[in-house]
């Protein structure tokens, strides 16, 4: 959520210098939707570029990790949970249609969920599941300095 707020604040600042009408901001966090009103689609692509770099693991899902709204998005959340990855950025595309459309264009990928590891687009639920089953996900997390909980669990069982 902090990432969204930072992104939206950045977007608003860019909007005010680009000649958009100034806006009295309410006190407190600014919603992503309000920021989006001031920014062109190209700004969305730039914002997305920053969003996928800010965190090592970034997912775009329907719903939230606490309450996924789609079985495929839930599968992504569950896989990350199994590996003990709980520090990641999760963006809910149901909150913002521009975000939903923007990420599809940014990734050139037509569906949600979408997974980014180390700023690189990895794929959707099917690919993450296959990476989990093949052991590739453990390896990719390891390269990023994240030790999968499944590796720890396997060690303990030996």
């Amino acid at each position, binding site marked *: 959520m902090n990432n969204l707020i930072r992104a939206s604040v950045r977007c608003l600042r860019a909007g005010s210098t680009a000649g958009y009408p100034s806006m009295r901001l309410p006190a407190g966090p600014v919603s992503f939707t309000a920021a989006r009103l001031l920014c062109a689609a190209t700004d969305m692509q730039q914002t997305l570029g920053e969003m996928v770099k800010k965190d090592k693991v970034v997912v775009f899902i329907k719903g939230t990790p606490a309450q996924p*709204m789609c*079985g495929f998005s839930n599968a992504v959340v569950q896989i990350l949970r199994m590996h003990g990855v709980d520090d990641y950025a999760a963006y809910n595309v149901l909150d913002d249609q521009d975000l939903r459309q923007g990420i599809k264009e940014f990734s050139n*990928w*037509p*569906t949600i969920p979408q997974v980014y590891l180390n700023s690189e687009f990895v794929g959707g639920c*099917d690919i993450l599941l*296959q990476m989990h089953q093949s052991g590739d996900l453990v390896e990719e997390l390891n390269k990023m300095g994240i030790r999968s909980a499944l590796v720890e669990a396997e060690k303990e069982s030996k």
Partner: protein
Amino acid sequence: MLARILLCARPVSATLPALTRPLAHSTAHMDPGSGGRPVETAIRTKLTGALVPAHLEVHNESHMHAVPPGSESHFRVLVVSASFDGLSLIQRHRLVNEALREELSSCVHALAIQAKTPAQWGSNPSVAKSPPCMGGSKGDHSVEVKLAAGRE
């Protein structure tokens, strides 16, 4: 958006001129048995043309999701093709997405993909199961738009 809906409303035969090789089932789109499943037929036709699969399964999983009966919005495809040799998973999935670009931008809301080489299929001939729906499509306006596109 209207252009995208109209794209999906065109009959399948309008998209066939793009294919250069004759299909084994060239009249598939006129098969009365497939008359009620135009999107599934289109998916089958396009994947066959683009990837020349050794084995192809197209499953309409719309009934597993929060959409009306008879919808063609959620699919699972299994494509076994030598075209995938040497390609990473994401490269394979992008080939499938590209073949179905029109459907994915109009009527198809979800597409689960398994893309295997003939060797991989031979050693593990299994189709994955989709996870249970969590109701996300219910009340989702963009899904309603896609369903309307599919019905036309």
